């Protein structure tokens, strides 16, 4: 067992056994397994890094140019007491990051079970299913923060942020992105066959959440009977928080609490559910 490569009768490549402490590995993994898993997502996404960066830098330029400058030019006067660009930038930031969160929650998770087999492989190691789900959230969280930072910087070039406190929009929209991510991740772990499910989710869940997120106009101008769509949309809550951070949008404290607690609750509930769906899928 501890043969360290003494050549046998026919010398050839051998495997060295250095006497790893397996129990120490297990103990560390019980604690840090989620972080150990998160490295997979980083490695797996590396080939797409250039594309991702192009989108991360390009999107804000296109959106801000089209909406902030284009649409802004025909919007008469101020919206919510600020220029249209200042009004729309937090909304676009939230929508972009939350949509990315939703995307990561569908195909990559489903594909991980079906094609890349990373969860199956991971479950041959000391990792537990719930740790892999938490690792995904960790890795995606990092991605969303990076994307938010890039968007924020590009928007700054447009002069979209009236104050430095607008930096707080970054954690706010990351919260919204993760609130889209974890419930979708949990659901995607239950999908056996690639189907129309994800198209439906994109069109009937993510899209309405975007349209009613108050991105281009305040949700309050909508008829009251449609406003509920915005209320269930993490994007709207993220947008509102980002606006408060950016230009100090007036908001009652209880509602601010809802904007923080609702996405947080979604993240936690989604994470808990994902732990269950991952285990259900992997444990035989």
């Amino acid at each position: 067992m501890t043969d360290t490569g003494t050549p046998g009768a026919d010398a050839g490549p051998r495997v060295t056994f250095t006497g790893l402490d397996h129990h120490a590995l297990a103990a560390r993994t019980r604690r840090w397994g989620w972080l150990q898993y998160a490295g997979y997502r980083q490695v797996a996404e590396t080939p797409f890094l250039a594309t991702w960066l192009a989108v991360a830098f390009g999107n804000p330029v296109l959106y801000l140019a089209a909406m902030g400058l284009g649409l802004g030019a025909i919007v008469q006067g101020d919206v919510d007491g600020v220029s249209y660009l200042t009004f729309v930038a937090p909304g676009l930031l939230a929508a972009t990051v939350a949509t990315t969160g939703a995307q990561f929650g569908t195909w990559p998770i489903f594909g991980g079970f079906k094609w890349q087999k990373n969860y199956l492989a991971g479950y041959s190691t000391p990792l537990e299913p719930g740790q892999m789900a938490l690792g995904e959230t960790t890795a995606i969280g990092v991605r969303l923060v990076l994307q938010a930072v890039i968007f924020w910087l590009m928007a700054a070039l447009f002069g979209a942020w009236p104050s430095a406190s607008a930096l707080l929009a970054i954690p706010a929209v990351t919260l919204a992105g993760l609130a889209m991510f974890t419930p979708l991740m949990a659901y995607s772990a239950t999908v056996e066959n690639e189907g129309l499910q994800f198209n439906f989710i994109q069109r009937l869940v993510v899209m309405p959440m975007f349209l009613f997120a108050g991105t281009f106009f305040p949700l309050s101008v909508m008829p009251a009977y449609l406003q509920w769509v915005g209320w269930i949309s993490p994007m709207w809550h993220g947008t509102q928080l980002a606006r408060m951070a950016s230009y100090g949008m007036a908001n009652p404290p209880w509602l601010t609490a809802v904007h923080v607690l609702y996405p947080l609750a979604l993240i936690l509930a989604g994470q808990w559910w994902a732990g269950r769906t991952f285990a259900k899928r992997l444990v035989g």
Partner: protein
Amino acid sequence: MSEAGGSVTAVSVIEARELTKTYGDFTAVDAISFDVAPGESFGLLGPNGAGKSTTMRMIGGTSLRTAGTLSVLGLDPERHGPEVRASLGVVPQADALDEELRARDNLYVYGRYFGLPRAYLKAKVPELLEFAQLTDKSDAKVTALSGGMKRRLTIARGLINEPRILLLDEPTTGLDPQARHILWDRLFRLKEQGVTLVLTTHFMDEAEQLCDRLVVVDHGRIVAEGSPRGLIQEHTTREVVEVRFGSARNAEMQAELAALVADGQRSRAGLEVLPDRILLYTDDGEAMLEEINRRALNPLTQLVRRTSLEDVFLRLTGRSLID
């Protein structure tokens, strides 16, 4: 526990008692008991659907047993899954490689799953690629590898944590003969190094090549246990005569041939009628052939060969290992 040189000090690394797994009212693994000694190469030989993979998953704690007890390195894998899997190398029946990643990245991320330090992996990954004869494929995506290369990569991956037990679920199924021999050579080296191997297979030649000891499983039950040689001695005669009469005459010759084997032979002698041929178990194949020819039974083809594990399975179940 047999075979481990009769040593009483060797504590089993795996101990299964009445291990059972049911799916609904279907029993996939039916109260099997076995022991694996350290350094031993232990096999589960059985046809498709015998319950081999299910047993392997229960050993890793990734499938929950329905009844019985199981101890792997002294621990219950269901309660101590991470501890057990930290010490195991798992080569599943389906490779579960990430085809879009490079060969070495597959090893690297897998090593990270164990929490192995980057410095350790930096040395270990090239060593294992070398062992698997994949050094020149290090930077290739897995999609570009042949079936045999993927299998070797999966074995290399299973060794990343210097496992105390390597579990191999059908290591060479689907590979061509040359790829199988390369793989056997690698596994043989591991065995020489004292790595405990637990492998499943439905190839009797693989079991004969690699296993010190094995259990023959069928329908979730152990039908025989022993060393390959011991099993052959115990359950079959020394030789077997294979005769073909063509599909039309095959069945009608049965009675006449049965009389032949019953003639003054020991109980292990006998015959098996397969759709395309009849097997006659006897200790003296040449004499049997002469007798067949003396009686002018006129088989289309005839041959005498040594008995193998395939014959053990046939004698025990009346069926062929590979259908």
